[in-house]
């Protein structure tokens, strides 16, 4: 109802329904659909993990996470303690090697190397290595480390680090490229040295993406089996020595036990799988919360 004093508008401010707006709406629905589509297998896998693994992993808590691995694999019962320690040692070690090295390498490539021959060569090698099958990395570690120094968690960490390196370099360089040059120039204009600019301006700006890339690499490393088969040997009891003696890891245990015909072993495989997923997810969660500090 029109009243005296109402503003009179010749045009409505609502956008007209045209093909363009409908198309935009359809694309939005499609994107939402994509998310739904990818959530389905995730839910299915999580359901499989929990339904098969939760009872094994959480009965008589924390037995599964602390007890040693039963030597006779067909016998039911916990646990996976040594494998959890092994995974932490191996993945932690690999991260400590690959992430700093990869980030610094990418910094060189983008901030210093540019198009020089050396930089092109490093970039080329990193690109070629993104597709290396994990088994090939395992062979490499066997020849370079295990044959000379025997089984150890360090050998496993080395193999995983080699797998992680190309991913960290690739994703870091991509993110560095997207930091606007104006930021660098402004910092230099203010009198900062190049190193200081990189450390205080460029890296923090690219940090969320760099950490995303690093997390992807860590998640992959935690779930990899092949390099560890060649570097760790086998163990059923705790081995906290990083450079010394055979060890085991959750991924290796999952693979070995899942291949067994005996339900007791298969159950432990699923319990270990659930444990690995929860453990790695916890790490990514912590890292993401830490990253939130950098977001403006």
């Amino acid at each position: 109802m029109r009243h005296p004093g109402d503003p009179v508008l010749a045009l409505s401010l609502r956008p007209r329904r045209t093909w363009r707006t409908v198309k935009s709406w359809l694309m939005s629905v499609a994107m939402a659909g994509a998310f739904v589509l990818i959530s389905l297998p995730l839910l299915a896998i999580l359901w499989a993990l929990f339904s098969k693994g939760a009872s094994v992993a959480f009965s008589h808590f924390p037995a599964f996470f602390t007890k040693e691995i039963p030597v006779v694999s067909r016998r039911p019962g916990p646990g996976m303690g040594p494998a959890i320690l092994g995974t932490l040692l191996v993945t932690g070690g690999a991260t400590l090697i690959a992430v700093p090295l990869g980030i610094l390498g990418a910094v060189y490539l983008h901030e210093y190397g540019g198009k020089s021959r050396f930089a092109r060569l490093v970039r080329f090698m990193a690109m070629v290595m993104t597709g290396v099958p994990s088994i090939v990395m395992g062979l490499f570690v066997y020849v370079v480390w295990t044959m000379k120094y025997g089984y150890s968690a360090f050998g496993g960490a080395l193999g995983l680090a080699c797998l992680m390196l190309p991913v960290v370099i690739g994703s870091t360089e991509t993110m560095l490229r997207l930091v606007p040059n104006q930021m660098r120039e402004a910092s230099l204009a203010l009198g900062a040295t190049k190193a200081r600019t990189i450390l205080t301006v460029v890296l923090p700006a690219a940090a969320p993406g760099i950490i995303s890339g690093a997390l992807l690499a860590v998640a992959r490393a935690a779930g990899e089996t092949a390099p560890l088969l060649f570097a760790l040997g086998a163990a059923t009891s705790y081995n906290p020595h990083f450079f010394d003696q055979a060890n085991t890891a959750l991924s290796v245990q999952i693979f070995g036990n899942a291949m067994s015909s005996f339900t007791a072993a298969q159950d432990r495989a699923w319990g270990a799988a659930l444990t690995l997923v929860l453990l790695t997810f916890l790490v990514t969660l912590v890292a993401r919360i830490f990253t939130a500090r950098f977001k403006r």
Partner: protein
Amino acid sequence: MTWLAILSVALISSCKKNQPATGGGSGSASAPMVTSGGGAVTINGSGSTFQKAFQESAIEAFTKANPNIKINYGGGGSGKGRQDLADMVVDFAGADAPYKDADLAKNKGGEILYFPILLGAITLSYNLDGVDKLQLSPETAAKIFQRDIKKWNDPAIAADNPGVKLPATDIVVAHRADGSGTTENFTAWLDQAGGGNWKLKSGATVEWPADTQAGQGNSGVAQIITSTKGAIGYVDQSDAKASGLHYATVKNAAGKYIEPTADSVSAAGAGIDVKDNLLFSAINAKGDTSYPITYQTWVIVYAKQTDKDKGAAVKNYIKYLITDGQKLLPELDFAPLPKPLQDKAVAQLDKIQV
């Protein structure tokens, strides 16, 4: 730079280290290190998954009696075991087949000794409704696995099974995707006993026809058989039993159809020809009651042990495997060594110089 601090702490705490093994050949790799803790010894083995179940039970029993010895057995396949031992990355290897002559020179530690430890059966497991008992001769088996025979009611299968009603189902052949000593011994049987029908040779990897299915490990093959009607495949007996599979009785060299049991496997052991170095093949063994697809596995060690403590531990462990440990075999669906073979193996223990 907290990561630097963490790295340094980790490095320092791991500095309980590396006493290199005593002795060792000229320029050869030093064997894995002794753990700290005064008197404790760790020995590593890897290789055949066929014998893994026995290794597990034996390790448990042996380490209970000898608490200062730790033993790890990593599986990974006979080939891996042989390679690991050649490179002296492990102290003993498990293998279902010996080294090839050409490879012997590559063994870093010199002369090796083969210790047989058990005998076991490969079953012909199948999934066929309404057929609880199936008899197969090696000639027919060869044709089935080669895809010369494609249906269950084929005359060749019917000839092996007089009086049995066979359905017209398609045969689905299941085999190993991964290289395996089981495949090697199974195809050795098809090769030797198949009457010339088997054309695909014997080996750890075989050029299987395209219209077959592959699974990883014995459990993978078992899984294909249980989930596919009309499937047939070769599976180690303990995996076949654990998966609840039906398996066939198989015609042996003496012409009798034999079911795989502890007795028929032992009988196969009685009919073998053992070489001086304790190598032999139990495939297609002589004897009326022998199960023809019986095979064998060895623990391989270097005659000259480089580390005194480890060498002693290895020697004692192998002694256990071939003497008291044999009691563990029947409940694992394996057969113990026949007495003459066991005596020879025990005598060979003296050749291990610690």
